[in-house]
């Protein structure tokens, strides 16, 4: 029986089988060839390019996150917090990783109930046009409770992350702002100077004061965290973590309680008080009035507040303590007097007659006391602030001798306090005038220089430093705000031939307060300790004070009120310099402020009772 599936003849079958088998071999050869081709492709990917793809795979799953360091806290000398960090929450979104932007928008409106939904809508409208792969932080603050509510449902919203960060907070608000400074957002100029590695994950930097000067210590170093994420950016687990090194906590020499008191003394007045410990240069109070609230700057100040502060005629941004340059007035008399007796231009006991004026080269230089002081010696000249005595003395000395007498006290030089941007002031000399004005010195200028007018300009801090050196009887100190730093300056001492010369000058200053005719005797009465002081009244008119032109004219013409002093005289614990702009005479305005500050500080210290230490935070 013939079969359709069988070949007709063996020969034919053999031939067909041969053809078929050849094609089978060919096909299988083709299979093997292409398999070898596939294997070579795999070898290319897995062997030749292994490093590259391995790196890409790791890069895929591992994302690096920087952990910004915690900024160091700032305390006062009694461990009271001046700058703290407070947790705040924010939400950020990456568009390309989000599933449903609209759903999140609705959820957010629900979450932030009470905030304006239109504002949220407007932001999202803008957000949809922004770079899809970048993270944007929502400009709505999230409370701790809202943050907790969001984290419960965060799994529904890939691409949205809740971040907690620490915000700088100044609990004492405007107090001591000019010493403490503040932090703010890093600007372009700062960015160029920064070590970017140190500022990864941070957008805050110290802008002024201590916050700026000790930026390196306060900032710390960022940490790095490797996070394993999936393709949707969800964090699966944390791999290696290099923790951030927190910034150093620092203690200031300031006594915040004293500082508050110092600032309160000004009421509405403008000026500066510096109080320091003459023994070591620790600044106890550093006031520049008016002040402003540094908290406004932390997250970037809004335009309204900024222009209000900027347009304030009293210029609260100016750090008067180190940048305010004022004619020192009669406060320089003790220094001039010391130079005079030291170099034997005059004997302390030599008397000069003061008719109430001094004539020189056809010009009459008046004493503040029109009727004159009569016959007057060095002690009385200081105690009563006799101008005529110094007019005459200055002509004997010459400007350069005055310069040389005052220069060791730090006039005309920066004090190198730990705040950036200090002004130098001016301590004139013949050389100085030639260099800066290109003109020779006139002797008439020496006369007004001797009472701290003319070219003389000092900063309140310079005055305080000089006062402290005087209190120390020549031991030069370095004013500073950082407590732990022992800036040892005990080695430098103003050399003096006759130690008793210190006593002569200091006695004059004691008599300012306690003498019968002392200019500030009103304020020296009934004090439980002995004060050495010197009043000053600086003429404003005719001086280059262009910065303050916005102030109303009448007020502007008032004299600046100055006072320097230290107490207790036998063992000085506090040295103070006060300047009240347009405050009138030194005895009227500045002296009582300084005395009250000393009293406030010393009474506490002398009785050993601290009213403040219990409020440690």
């Amino acid at each position, binding site marked *: 029986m013939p079969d359709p599936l069988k070949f007709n003849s063996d020969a034919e079958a053999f031939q067909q089988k041969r053809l078929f088998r050849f094609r*089978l071999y060919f096909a299988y050869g083709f299979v093997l060839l*292409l398999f070898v081709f596939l*294997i070579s492709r*795999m070898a290319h990917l*897995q062997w030749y390019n292994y490093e590259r793809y391995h790196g890409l795979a790791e890069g*895929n799953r591992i994302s690096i996150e920087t952990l910004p360091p915690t900024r160091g806290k700032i305390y006062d000398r009694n461990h009271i917090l001046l700058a703290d960090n407070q947790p705040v929450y924010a939400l950020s979104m990456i568009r390309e990783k989000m599933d449903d932007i609209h759903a999140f928008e609705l959820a957010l409106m629900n979450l932030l109930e009470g905030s304006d939904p239109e504002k949220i809508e407007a932001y999202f409208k803008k957000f949809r046009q922004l770079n899809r792969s970048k993270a944007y932080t929502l400009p709505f603050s999230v409370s701790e409770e809202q943050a907790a509510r969001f984290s419960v449902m965060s799994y529904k919203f890939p691409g949205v992350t809740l971040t907690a960060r620490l915000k700088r907070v100044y609990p004492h608000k405007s107090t001591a702002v000019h010493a403490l400074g503040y932090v703010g957002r890093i600007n372009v100029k700062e960015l160029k100077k920064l070590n970017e590695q140190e500022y990864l994950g941070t957008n805050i930097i110290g802008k002024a004061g201590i916050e700026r000067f000790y930026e390196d210590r306060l900032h710390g170093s960022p940490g790095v965290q490797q996070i394993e994420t999936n393709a949707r950016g969800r964090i699966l687990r944390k791999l290696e973590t290099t923790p951030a090194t927190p910034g150093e906590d620092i203690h200031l020499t300031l006594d915040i309680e004293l500082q508050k008191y110092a600032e309160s003394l000004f009421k509405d007045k403008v000026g500066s008080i510096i109080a320091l410990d003459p023994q070591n240069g620790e600044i106890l109070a550093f006031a520049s009035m008016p002040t402003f609230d540094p908290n406004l700057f932390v997250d970037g100040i809004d335009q309204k507040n900024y222009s209000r502060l900027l347009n304030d005629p009293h210029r609260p941004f100016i750090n008067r303590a180190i940048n305010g340059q004022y004619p020192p007035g009669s406060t320089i008399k003790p220094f001039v007097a010391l130079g005079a007796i030291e170099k034997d231009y005059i004997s302390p006991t030599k008397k000069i007659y003061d008719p109430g004026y001094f004539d020189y080269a056809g010009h009459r230089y008046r004493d503040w006391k029109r009727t004159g002081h009569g016959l007057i010696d060095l002690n009385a000249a200081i105690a009563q602030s006799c101008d005529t005595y110094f007019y005459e003395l200055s002509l004997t000395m010459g400007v350069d001798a005055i310069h040389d007498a005052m220069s060791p006290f730090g006039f005309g030089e920066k004090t190198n306090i730990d705040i950036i941007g200090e002004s130098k002031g001016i301590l004139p000399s013949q050389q100085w005038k030639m260099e800066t004005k290109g003109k020779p010195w006139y002797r008439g200028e020496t006369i007004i220089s001797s009472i701290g007018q003319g070219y003389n300009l000092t900063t309140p801090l310079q005055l305080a430093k000089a006062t402290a050196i005087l209190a120390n009887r020549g031991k030069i100190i370095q004013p500073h705000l950082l407590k732990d730093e022992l800036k040892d300056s005990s080695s430098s001492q103003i050399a003096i031939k006759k130690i008793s010369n210190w006593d002569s000058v200091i006695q004059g200053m004691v008599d300012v307060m306690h003498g019968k005719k002392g200019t500030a005797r009103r304020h020296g009465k009934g004090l439980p300790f002995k004060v050495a002081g010197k009043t000053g009244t600086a003429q404003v008119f005719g001086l280059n004070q262009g910065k303050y032109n916005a102030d109303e004219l009448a007020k502007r013409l008032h004299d600046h009120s100055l006072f320097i002093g230290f107490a207790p005289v036998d063992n000085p614990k506090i040295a103070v310099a006060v300047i009240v702009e347009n405050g009138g005479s030194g005895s009227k305005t500045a002296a009582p402020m300084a005395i009250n500050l000393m009293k406030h500080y010393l009474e506490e210290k002398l009785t050993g009772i601290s009213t403040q230490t219990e409020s440690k935070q």
Partner: protein
Amino acid sequence: MKLKNIQPQQVYRHNKGLLNALHIDGWLLLGLLLLLSISVAIVYSASGGDEAVTVRHVIRIGIALVLMVGFAQIPPNIIYIFTPWLFAAGILMLIAVILFGDVGKGAQRWLDLGVAKFQPSELMKLVLPITVAWLFAHSQFPPSYKRLFSGAIIIAFTASLIVVQPDLGTSLLIAMSGLFVLFFAGLPWKVILAAITATVASAPIAWHFMHAYQKQRVLTFLNPESDPLGSGYHIIQSKIAIGSGGIEGKGFLGSTQAHLDFLPESTTDFIFSVLSEEFGLLGVITLLLLYSAVIARGLYIASQAQDNFTRLIAASLSMTLFVYIFVNIGMVSGLLPVVGLPLPLISYGGSSMITLMISFGLLMSIHTHKRLLTD
């Protein structure tokens, strides 16, 4: 076509052992079981250790194995008898898909039969090569041009019904299985060369008729980095998975690319990338050796087949398996454009696994239903 009487008692060999009794080819079964075991392991890993998915996969493999054994029982001459009817039914269903098909993923590929959705193109993967083999069953090798031409018409007609679904990838693969029959029947080399030349030349015309997404796939293939977040993303991530596996791989369950969701469709079309990532180049070579052994066994069965019908079917089905393997691996490794195609015997997924196992049932049937040469 005359149908002759066949005596069943003449066809069967004497049975020896259980495998013979069940018409199972031991070597083929061994190769398949090895591949399927790998499949279970990789699906488990690629699904992120999802036991439900793995169990479903194992059940499906079980069903497929039962179907394979079932089809191994059908003697080839019975299939021969039903071939024209199967072909007619297949064509009708393809037309039905075009008219009433369910739209899934932008293409009409499914026929909803009420109880289950059915993909007629899957059936045609088997029916078309059988039909073309049927056509050449009584032909001389090499066949006449007239017969070759009728074979080509059948192939083109079937493929065109699938192209309009639209499913370019499947239609090309099905056409391929038919063309293999022509090749093994002895299609002259000059015709083959001419056809290849014509195909290359007509590529711009084919481009014109492509759908936008198909064009996009080709463009992406040519330069995956051009669209790293769009269609190029899959290929880039797949290459990263494969390349990062290195020589020895990251170890079982060690695929970070799949487990962290970077790799799309990691249990189906891109399962090879997971395997390469976890077992490296050595794993890939092992897999390809297993595949080539299975293909070799299929081609050996073809070489031992006693008539044109069965030898053409066996050779074509073996080579089709190869094409599927090559296209899938070529695709995930960035050598070929992305066409939605699973890796044979490894990928998770129902219909293609069933179809494949039925084709292995047919191979086994061909090998075990030999007539007694001594009659």
